[in-house]
Structures are given as structure tokens and as C-alpha cells.
């Protein structure tokens, strides 16, 4: 589906991504994880043609994305961004914006087909009931669903999500990710999502790509990537990795500095008392 070859990418001569090589197969659900500033969003921006790579190539179904037209690309890749606008638009109008790449040259009104597709994507995301409300009036969780509905209206083959669960409560996090998983399973949609929450990434993604300082540090199944040595190495934080008793996927526990010091002190005490016994 998507192939990234020797990608070097950055802003104004400051290279952020270095020598990225990645293959994403049809129907895959891929999670991209990594610390802040490691280049996750930059990678997404390179894939969506917002950022021109310094070197390397990105091929979508074997075609260089820079050889494709903007509309052609938007018919294949849809993005669920972090930021959003359109506060004064109704939900339906907003979702219909996703049909723009499919409009003919001199078409000014939506066809029946456009309306049907918009309706279907709204019912898939459970946002049909919001239809008439304004974008500025709905909650954060609903907004995320509407953004996914708009992306689905583009009828893409590849869906990119940039931290779809930030600022959401656990119920909405699960709802959004369950929906994405369903879209991936039932409709064969290939999904790449950037996630900050390692536990969610572990639970939902088949494959994880860990980016650290602009390079792919490790790629593989969650059990392979989410190993405490790797995490501590990339994030420079002490963690404990356990297993989820239900799904048996790895989950990560953090340790606060205070607790760590306490533990160290205790250990030292033990050593001290051992010495002077």
C-alpha cells in the first residue's frame, strides 16, 4: 500500500526525519509511537504531501505521491488532524467537505451520491444525530468522531490519524479506537495512527513503529517493541512493563521520581545495614 524509502525530511534545512524505511501492507493497522519532537507528526506530514522531503521517496500503491495531483491523493489518503476549524459550519456541511476531492470541475452542488456517502459515514461514526448542530457546539469526543466521518466521506484507502485520543476521557478513547479497529477489520481500511498513549497503542495496533530522534528505533508487534529496555532507552524514563491479564498485550507502568528515590534509598539502606551488621 505505502512504501517509504530512505526518507530524509525536515523544516528549513533542519533535518528531523533521517533515513526512514517503512512498508505498510494493505489492511494493516499501524501505530506510530515516540517521544515529543521525535518526528511522528513530521512523518505524517510527509506522507500527506504537506512537507517536501529532502531526500527519499514515498510510494502509494507503487506511485510516487509527488507525481500525483492533490485531488488524486486526497481520494486515496484521508487525514484526521489534531487541529480543527469550521466552528460555524453544521456537522453535515463539515462532513460534506470530505467530498471535495471527488467533485467534477464545474460541479457546484453535491450529487445524491455525495449526500448518501456523507450520510453513511455519519451513521458509521454514530454522528448522524448531530447532523444539524454546529461544529463549535459539540463536545471534544463528538468532534473527533465528526473528523473521522469527514475522512470516511473521502472514501480513502488509507486513513491517517494524528493522536486521535488526546484530550479525551477513557470512554471516548476506547470508543474512537474501537471504531477505527472496526473500520480496519470490516472495511479493510489501512490505518496509520500516531499515538502518545503506549497502552492504547499496544492494545489496538497490530504493529508498532517506535521513532526516536528522527529514526525508526524499533518496529514490530507490540510485544517486541514495548520492552522496558527499549522504552527507557528512547523515552529516558523508568518504566515497568507488565501484561494485560485479559488481552495479554504489554502495558506500561510509570514510576514517579519520588517513589524511585524512596526505593533507591531503601535499597541503599538494605545494603548499608548489610555492610554494618
Amino acid at each position, binding site marked *: 500500500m505505502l512504501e517509504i524509502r530512505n526518507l530524509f525530511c525536515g523544516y528549513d534545512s533542519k533535518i528531523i526525519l533521517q533515513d526512514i524505511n517503512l512498508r505498510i501492507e494493505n489492511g494493516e493497522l499501524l501505530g506510530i509511537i515516540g517521544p515529543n519532537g521525535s518526528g511522528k507528526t513530521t512523518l505524517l*506530514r510527509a506522507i500527506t504531501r504537506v512537507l517536501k522531503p529532502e531526500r527519499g521517496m514515498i510510494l502509494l500503491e507503487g506511485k510516487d505521491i509527488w507525481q500525483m495531483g492533490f485531488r488524486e491523493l486526497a481520494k486515496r489518503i484521508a487525514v484526521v*488532524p489534531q*487541529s480543527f476549524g469550521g466552528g460555524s459550519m453544521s456537522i453535515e456541511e463539515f462532513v460534506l467537505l470530505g467530498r*471535495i476531492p471527488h467533485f467534477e470541475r464545474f460541479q457546484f*452542488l453535491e450529487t445524491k451520491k455525495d*449526500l448518501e456517502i456523507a450520510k453513511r459515514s455519519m451513521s458509521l461514526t454514530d454522528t448522524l444525530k448531530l447532523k444539524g448542530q454546529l461544529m463549535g457546539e459539540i463536545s471534544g469526543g463528538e468532534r473527533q468522531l465528526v473528523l473521522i466521518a469527514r475522512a470516511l466521506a473521502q472514501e480513502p484507502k488509507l486513513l491517517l490519524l494524528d493522536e486521535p485520543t488526546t484530550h479525551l476521557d477513557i470512554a471516548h478513547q476506547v470508543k474512537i479506537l474501537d471504531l477505527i479497529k472496526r473500520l480496519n477489520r470490516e472495511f479493510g481500511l489501512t490505518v496509520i495512527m500516531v499515538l502518545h498513549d503506549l497502552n492504547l497503542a499496544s492494545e489496538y495496533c497490530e504493529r508498532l513503529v517506535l521513532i526516536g530522534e528522527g529514526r525508526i528505533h524499533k518496529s514490530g508487534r507490540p510485544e517486541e517493541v514495548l520492552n522496558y529496555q527499549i522504552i527507557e532507552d528512547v523515552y529516558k524514563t523508568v518504566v515497568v512493563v507488565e501484561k494485560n491479564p485479559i488481552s495479554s498485550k504489554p502495558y506500561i507502568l510509570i514510576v514517579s521520581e519520588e517513589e524511585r528515590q524512596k526505593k533507591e534509598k531503601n535499597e541503599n539502606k538494605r545494603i548499608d545495614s548489610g555492610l554494618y551488621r
Partner: protein
Amino acid sequence: MNKKITHWIFWILVLGGILLGISVFSLCVGSVGIPIKKIISIILQGRGTTEYSILFDIRLPRIILGFAVGGALSLAGVILQGMFRNPLVEPYTLGISGGAALGVCLNIVLRLHRAFGILTLPLFGFLGAAMVILLVYSLSIRKGVLKIQGLLLTGVMLSFISSSLIMLIMAISRTEDLHGIVFWIMGSLEEPNWLLIKVVLLVSMFLLVISYLFCFDLNALSLGEEEAMHLGINTERTKRLLFIIASLLTGFSVSVAGIIGFVGLIVPHFVRMFVGSDHRVLLISSFLCGGSFLIFCDTLARTIIAPMELPVGVITGILGGCLFVYALTKKQVVLGEK
């Protein structure tokens, strides 16, 4: 969805009706009042009567010019506000009016219009506007990317520079020239040359049609540049072409009619309150509403203290500002009750 289209058609018809009504009203009133009923008989009588020449040589050209200029400025305002995602941007923010005013001032002070004819005034205005457009445009391009915020700031700065230069020119110019400069800067729809009126009308109508090629691009741009790209919009090309369209609209209007403020700022907001923010209906509605608004203001300007005339820019500012503040408070009340 049909409801949406009905809603749009309703508003376009209402605004078209208002335009027609105001135009007829504007034909009737003035220092010589002509009742509506008489207009038809005057037209039938044909050329020759004084009333005929009042209608067709004095009032009609002003109405047509008011329609073209008001429509063009409002359209430019909608395009720029949509493109910049900034409700405070108006056609004059980009310094185009300043450039035009500077060109005209130079012409007046150097007495070129006396030597080479009165048509050099709009020509110099247009040249000044074109200079500023080119300058703002080239200064805001970095590495092939048109920086939207840079465009805005450069425009505001050039606007300040040209207004300071105008003040300098005014400070050292002769009294009789001073009057001409002030008169031009205040703006007026009085234009004896039919050709110029036709040119402005054709240009603004043509650009209205062209702007419709970008109605979806504008809708997508209202979410931000990157989002528009995700929706398959070639934002670089779109930004450039929209900037050129808005500049041409403003340049032509300003060089013929002078600086008539507030139309391009207020009308788009006002129209958006009623018809919504979809550019497919917003573009044409703003054009119609801007045209009606300017014709109405011009009618007031020439009748309030007739036979003397007020500068039309004064009326657009006062009337438009008051109307807008009123609508804004009203709208907030409605929203608050929801």
C-alpha cells in the same frame, strides 16, 4: 439538502430584489424628484428632455458604478477574509488603496492630469495599486511559498508607508491641489466617463464568475491551509490566484471611485450572518449586497444636503458601522437564548 438550496435561492432573490428596489429609488430621488410612474414615460419619450438626461447621464452611471464598485469591494472582502481566516481583513488592509492614493496624489501634484487629460488619474491610481500588489506579493514569497501572515503584515506596513508619503505630499502641495487630493481620497461615485464605468463593471462581473471556480477551495481554506491540502486543494496555486483576484477587484474599484471604506469589511460579515458561511452562496450574495449598500449610501450622500454632496465614504462608515454593531448585538442575544 434541498432545504439548503431553497434557502440560498431565497436569499439571492431577496438580495436581488433589494438591489433592484434601491436602484429604482436612487433613480427617483435627488435634487430633482422624479416619481416612478413618470420614469417609463420619460424613457418612451426618448432623448432630449432634461429629465431624460438627469436619469441616464447623471443618475444611472452612478448607480451602475456603485453596483460594480460596491460588489467588487465586498467580493474582495469575502475572498480575503476566507483566505486569511481573519475577520478583520478587508481589501484596503493589503495596502492597495494606499498605493492607488499615492499614485493619484503624485499625478495631481505634478499636474499630469492637466497636461495629459483627466483619464491619467485612474491610470495613475491603477499603477500605484499594481505597484503595491507586486511589492506585497514578491515580499511575501519565501521559497516558493506564499506566506499568508507575511502578506498581511507587509500589506499593513506598505499601507502606512504610502499614507505617510501622501501626508508628506499634502504638506508641501499647493492649496488648489490639496483640495483635489482630499476630494479624491474621500472617494466618490461621480464619474463622467462611461468607458471607465463599463470597464469596472465588466472587470468585477468577470472576476465574480472566476471567483466561483474557487468556492470549494475557499470553503476548505476556512479550516486552515494544511487541512485544505488534505482535502485535495492545491493551496499554493489557490492562494496566489485568490490574492490576484482580490487585488484586481480592489485596484480597479479604487482607481476609479477613490477610497470608499468599510464596504469590503462590513458587507461580508453582514451577509454571513444571514446566508451562512458557505462560499457558494456567500460570493454572489456579498456582491449583490455590497452593490445595493453602496448605491444606497451614494443616494444618501447626494440627497441629504442637496444640491451639495457629502463624501460617500463618510456615509458608508457611519451607516455601515452602526448597522453592523446593531446586527452584532442582536445576533448575540439570539445565540444566547439558544
